[in-house]
């Protein structure tokens, strides 16, 4: 019997009545104003507006004009613990997630040291049980030290609660190595999440290879450095009948390769990030290091392909790849800067502002793709339903704010959307039955 894959420091069970919010759960018929009563951390009743009574001790929140969704799940974040707590730690990273409307996140293993051992996973889960504000799942490395040469103790790690495995930050360069991991997956289960990049093509590249990099004289990362590996690994997964999840797709060729793998019936899923869905390499033309991430921001055609893939289901979910870096680390020339942007606090607002408001994507679809990431890895999917644990987010879609203006909950400020005016603010997040985030605006408005 394996351990539960998610751990957190459980808070007090919530007793809350949200009155009159527009409830939208893309997996049910709910799409309209309702009262939702949470008792003891579970959704106790859903009723027509004004019909539910609040028992004693239940906080009543006016949801009128606001939206209540199942809370989001991010299958791809970097919490930097252990070893790089100056960038982020379990408490700050999960608080940042809660502020973004998330009820669960999955942490990557490229920590210092790498999360690649039973002892490491045990101590990290113990720490999360004391510090994580929302449930966290851990994905240890596929290969020891992310070195690409030896498998980790995958079966033991699974028994201890490893959600799956990934060498994120690096590709599994050797096809033979990945094949072994896929074979071993038959014993231990656990999805392999893959950072797709052929280092012989990406080399020392620091941004998308194209017109912008040509002008700037910055070494480029060609889109084929990703798509050739997506195609290779899809073929390996198909051959071994294994399950893989392709991380942070960035280009049109990769979307095509995944679509083809899905057509062939391979167990391949994938994600796209808010930054790749909202920005292009033009945003990096000023060499702002917040715009440096891996994979890089690519062209408008690539962005459109990601949007289309998200719409037609080729891309299964939105994942932030929340990658905090300290100010000093980013306050350097572009080519020297580490790759990554934070994203948990802006994911919904960025996608809502850039894609839902202009009518490019429907609200229900975006909510679906922001909540589906955990399910791809075997976690339960948050639902707004009676008897379900309360994983809910209350959002004001009308509110406008400037990213970074009031600082960040994350320990790091390297957000690619910094300074942008975005629409929609998270007012309240309930994760695993506890209130984990409450905006000031809500405190003031609620009696």
């Amino acid at each position, binding site marked *: 019997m394996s351990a539960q894959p998610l751990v957190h420091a459980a808070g007090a069970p919530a007793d809350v009545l949200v009155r009159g919010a527009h409830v939208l759960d893309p997996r049910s018929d709910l799409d309209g104003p309702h009262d939702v009563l949470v008792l003891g951390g579970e959704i106790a009743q859903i009723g027509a507006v004004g019909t539910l009574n609040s028992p004693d001790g239940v906080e009543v929140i006016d949801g009128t004009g606001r939206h209540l969704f199942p809370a989001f799940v991010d299958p791809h974040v970097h919490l930097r613990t252990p070893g790089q707590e100056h960038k982020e730690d379990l408490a700050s990273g999960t608080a940042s997630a809660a502020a973004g409307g998330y009820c669960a996140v999955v942490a990557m293993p490229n920590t210092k040291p790498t999360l690649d051992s039973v002892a490491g996973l045990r101590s990290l889960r113990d720490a999360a049980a004391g510090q994580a504000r929302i449930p966290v799942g851990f994905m240890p490395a596929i290969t020891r030290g992310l070195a690409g040469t030896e498998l980790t103790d995958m079966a033991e790690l699974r028994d201890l609660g490893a959600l799956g495995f990934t060498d994120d930050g690096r590709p599994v360069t050797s096809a033979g190595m990945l094949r072994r991991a896929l074979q071993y997956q038959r014993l231990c289960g656990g999805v392999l999440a893959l950072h797709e990049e052929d280092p012989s093509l990406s080399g020392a590249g620091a941004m998308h*290879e*194209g*017109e*912008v*990099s*040509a*002008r*700037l*004289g*910055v*070494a*480029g990362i*060609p889109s084929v450095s990703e798509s050739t590996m997506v195609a290779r690994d899809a073929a390996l997964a198909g051959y071994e009948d294994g399950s893989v999840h392709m991380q942070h797709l960035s280009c049109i060729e990769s979307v095509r390769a995944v679509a083809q793998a899905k057509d062939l019936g391979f167990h391949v899923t994938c994600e796209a990030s808010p930054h790749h869905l909202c920005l292009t390499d033009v945003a990096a033309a*000023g*060499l702002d290091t917040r715009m440096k991430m891996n994979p890089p921001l690519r062209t408008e055609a690539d962005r459109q392909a990601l949007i289309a893939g998200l719409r037609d289901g080729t891309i299964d979910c939105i994942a932030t790849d929340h990658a905090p870096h300290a100010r*000093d680390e980013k*306050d*350097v*020339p*572009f*080519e*020297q800067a580490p790759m990554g942007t934070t994203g948990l606090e802006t994911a919904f607002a960025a996608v809502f502002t850039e894609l839902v408001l202009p009518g490019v994507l429907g609200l229900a679809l975006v909510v679906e793709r922001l909540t589906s990431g955990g399910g791809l890895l075997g976690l339960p999917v948050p639902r707004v339903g009676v008897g379900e644990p309360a994983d809910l987010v209350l959002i004001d879609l009308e509110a406008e704010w400037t990213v970074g203006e009031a600082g960040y909950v994350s320990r790091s400020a390297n957000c690619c959307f910094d300074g942008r005016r975005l629409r929609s603010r998270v007012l309240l997040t309930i994760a695993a039955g506890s209130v984990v985030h409450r905006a000031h605006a809500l405190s003031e408005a609620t009696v």
Partner: protein
Amino acid sequence: MRHLLSIDDLDRAGIERILDRASTLSDLGEREVKKVPALRGRRVLNLFYEASTRTRSSFELAAKALSADVVNFAASGSSVEKGESLKDTILTLSAHRPDAIVIRTPWAGSAALVAGWTDAAIVNAGDGKHEHPTQALLDVYTLRQRLGALDGAKIWIVGDVLHSRVARSNITAFQTMGAEVTVCGPPTLIPRGIEAMGCAVRTTLDELPEADVVYALRMQHERMSEAFVPSLREYAACYQIDSRRLGAQQVLMHPGPVNRGVELSGEVVDSPQALITAQVAAGVIVRMAVLYELLAGARSPEPVATETVAS
């Protein structure tokens, strides 16, 4: 103009203003006392993170000819080798109240970044493979001396465009002055997407005779080990500018240092068409004009070369 970070900081009139001022300074080198007092008491810091002899000494001579105090700060043997960040180095050096910092680094955008960290005027003396605007200015100056206006001139830039900041600044500068630019080199050394800069791209020298100006780039030896080209021999066979390929009416330029027998044959380097030493000479006076523009230009619009100081 506050800084010279990119050749894009200058429109055609701006380039002409700087080059006209350089012209007024051009006889200074012929004098016994090669100095004017224009920047007396001003401090210029040369901060070089890459090995450079000619650019650094050219800037140093330029600043000294304007009577500025110059300090050279090389990255090797300094705090930089002890792990100090670029920002901390700039903050430290700024405490010496420099009026201008001339900076070269291996990183694109670093001059612009540094401009945000100090009150000094910043001159980009090369930021990675991005830009080298004073090289572009001295090249335009040299060409103007030889050809007059550049309008309609066909200029071929030949060689390793991928790794060349000179190519990037010069494409823009030549186009701003009305020239048509073609870049030519092995496909492995032409950056994907460079057409977006408005230049034509060729991978053979077949059409080289159309060029009025042939601008050869330096071929770095390490490009062989990185397998960008199979061998120097093959590179020379395909792309070397020699007396067979260089027409009598064409002029030849090169940013230096030249690899004789690689990108240029020895005889064209020594030919009357070669402007290579004229480029070096132009380097000092153009950089004088740039420093003057940044440090004194706003206060005194008149040329400076009338008065000399004995020192």
